């Protein structure tokens, strides 16, 4: 069901205030050995990217609402057009917030239930293998991946939630270390423990946890690498 790229080129968008851009570039370029181009927010050129990444951070300072300003960035016109044509777009953390703000993904990310910024390892579980991000993930055993956000509580109305469930758009849910999806393992109050979703066409993806922070063996946790392996192996086959 996925395109067969002989050669994969990732475009990482850099907004002013992005601060996880270099982390995901390091993961894609050095660890996953992929070609990466940097896309400056003021540009209108995606430089022939096959896969667009919106990294984490605090775009434009996020003083209004996370992701609220970034969606008006010049480069976002091209990203929207690219996504409309079926191009792959992946937002992590602030990138996920921007995708929701720009309407590419349904729902919204609200303040964590405890009203605090939370940075810690959590566990999440892939819902199915039927997406670019989860194709190689084990749906039984959880992945340990960090979160770092103040506004990560996923919210959508009931109808949207129903559609997300029916269409297999829920990619990841928060769970405990044994893979049980419980209230206690939900770090921020996300509805239905939702940690990551896709759009209906499954070409736009967003997740709050940071897989790029769990990809380098020198940091003793490579669980997040499975998500990048999924992306790369699926599109390469």
């Amino acid at each position, binding site marked *: 069901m996925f395109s067969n790229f002989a050669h994969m080129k990732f475009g990482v968008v850099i907004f*002013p*205030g992005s*601060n*996880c851009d*270099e*982390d995901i570039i*390091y*993961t894609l370029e*050095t660890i996953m050995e992929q070609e990466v181009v940097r896309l400056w927010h003021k540009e209108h050129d995606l430089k022939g990217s096959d896969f667009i990444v919106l990294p*984490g*951070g*605090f775009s*434009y*300072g*996020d*003083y209004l609402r996370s992701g609220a300003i970034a969606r008006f960035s010049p480069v976002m016109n091209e990203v929207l057009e690219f996504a409309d044509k079926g191009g792959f777009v992946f937002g992590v953390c602030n990138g996920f917030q921007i995708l929701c703000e720009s309407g590419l993904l349904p729902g919204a990310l609200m303040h964590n239930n405890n009203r*605090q*910024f*939370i*940075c*810690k*390892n959590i566990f999440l579980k892939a819902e199915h293998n039927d997406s670019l991000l989860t194709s190689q993930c084990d749906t039984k055993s959880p992945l340990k991946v*960090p979160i*770092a956000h*103040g506004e990560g509580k996923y919210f959508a109305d009931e109808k949207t939630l129903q559609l997300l469930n029916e269409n297999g758009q829920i990619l990841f849910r928060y769970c405990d270390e044994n893979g049980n999806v419980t209230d206690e393992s939900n770090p921020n109050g996300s509805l239905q423990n939702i940690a990551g979703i896709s759009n209906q066409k499954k070409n736009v993806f967003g997740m709050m946890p*940071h897989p*790029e*922070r769990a*990809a*380098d063996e*020198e*940091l*003793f*946790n490579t669980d997040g690498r499975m998500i990048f392996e999924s992306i790369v192996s699926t599109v390469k086959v």
Partner: protein
Amino acid sequence: MSEVSEEIHVSLDTAKELGLLPEEFEKIISILGRTPNFTELSIYSVMWSEHCSYKNSIRWLKTLPREGKHLLAKAGEENAGLVDIGDGLACAFKIESHNHPSAIEPYQGAATGVGGINRDIFTMGARPVAQLNSLRFGNLNNERNKWLLRGVVKGIGDYGNAFGIPTVGGEIYFDDCYTVNPLVNAMSAGIVEAGKTASAISYGKGNPVFIVGSATGRDGIHGATFASGDLHADSHEDLPAVQVGDPFTEKLLLEASLEVIATGAVVGMQDMGAAGIICSTSEMSAKGKHGMVVHLDQVPTRQKGMLPWEILLSESQERMLVVAKKGRETEVQKIFEKWDLNCVLIGEVTETDRLHFYMHGELTADISAESLVLGGGAPVYEREYNEPKYLEKNKKFNQENIAIPGDRKDVAYFLLKNPSIASKKWITTQYDSMVGTVNMTTNEPSDAAVINIKDTDKSLVLTVDCNSRYVYASPEIGAAIAVAEAARNVVCAGGEPLAITNCLNFGNPYNPEVYWQFVNAIKGMGDACKKFDTPVTGGNVSFYNQSSDEGPVFPTPTIGMLGLLKSKKHFMTLYFKEAGDLIYLIGTSQNDISCSEYLYSYHNIKNSPPPYFNLEEEYAVQRAVTKAIQRRLIASAHDVSDGGLFICLAEAGMHRQFGFDINSDEEIRKDAFLFGEAQGRIVVTVKPEQEDTFIDSMLESEAEFVKLGEVTEGEMIVDGESFGDILEAKETYFNAIGNLMQD
């Protein structure tokens, strides 16, 4: 000179109101050969303030060891210390206080502290890679202290998280002495290619001077030396004394600064912290032995009608002064334009040694740069000091008068939930500790923060330490312990201690007892730094940490230490790995409960001498552990510090839920054995099959060592007596602060 500020008549009274002493006013007149105008007087008052001139401390700071084979910049020479870490790389690091702003407005006070220390790092061309902090608050049973803690933590988090540099370590203590005056010390470390650093210097006639970053406002002016209202128009009254931080602009400023330094078009740059434009222009000029002409009306301002002295003294955040090479102006300006930041030409370098500040074409101040700065014309004082009277009370302490509690499990749990000992998880999860993907201690906890230097086999090892209760008990020994503990933490992580930065938080230096604490702390610190070969690369002095009612805070000379892990295969963690591993104590148990948290909080004995400490023994213990790590003979290493041996063992067990079964020493009081805080001790675990080799290695060393027992599946046992399961201890330890904050 005719100008705006001539409206304010300058007399000795004006000088006094600005915080200058009569003899300082005379000195200014003799330097200038005339009475200063108000702008000039304002300049001297901030540049000769303690904060900028170190006039009451420099005499003693100079006695600290400040040279070493790894140092690339001497203390005070640049904005931060610079240490060679090999592979063509250097580490810039520094710690700084933001105590008073945080006491008034904890959120902005702490946030701008984080901003300031990071600017000190990237103004040198180094990209910050890790932040730490050292915090002190009053008792958490007090609502105001909770408010302060919440505000400070949120301020550090919001600024640091958005700026995008991980907060990887720190320490937090709670004591009544900090109720009115909390301490907020922020540390940052960055990495730069050796030889590609920028210097805080200005030279080269005709070179352009730019101000970059945020616009200049009236914020922070009151924060310097202005206390009384009659010098000001009434419009200032509503403005905050504390500056306001903007981490987004700081992030842009970081990227733009590093980009502009890389072009080679920069002669020098300095961030604007205390005393704003006047501090950066004078320090850079004095260092480069050149002068400067600056047009203050060109400075972008937030408010209309700012007066020359307001523009000069403003402490608005996220600004830098850049001196560029003539002819390369466009190159510099384009970079700041790319990052949507101001970059405005405000003057040029002159061949004189004078600073000329103009406002709309009129000269408003004419001063020699040299006369303003530390090492130049700034005054240097020797203050008198006397041994504090409370030390007499310490000497009277006799531990024979303290009954040994029958229920030691009760003591253990009392200490596990003591906020100064308990897990700081409630605080640290509010900081992004993982951005940058370099924090090696997220998943593998260690006594110090270990920061991966990608594409090399090395890591930075960072820690901040100071048990101020020990310093209060004996400034000399307590400060030496702070250095020793920092080194111990670095060593337990597998690192080699390289250098320190210090943040010297004391009370009023004009109080001879406070000054005695300061002088003796410097002495102890210097002795320990010499022993560990960790020169002082800089830092900051913060006096006047006290309230009029409750007296000074505990003397708190916080030590920030940089170490180097030369090979990642020698990275050492603090936690027990497997049941059956043997537990050894390196160093010796002492019959000593003096100054322990146990004595202080459980028995409520506030005066006692410092705990046992022997610098030579400490050094031998650390050398022995380093050897054992390098020979791969131990599975974990955790130092014995707050709460004593029991807490040390429990902490080592918690990560993977292991307990311990140990035997005490019959010759030592049981409470001293378990909860005493004698220094120079490290708990290590050894695989049974490696025990013989381990013992051989230890016998080669000069350190004492003793087998305590072994790691269990979860139960904590001392002399056959159960202290419960590690899970129970873990829950108490991890939830203590969160529970207090919810109350």
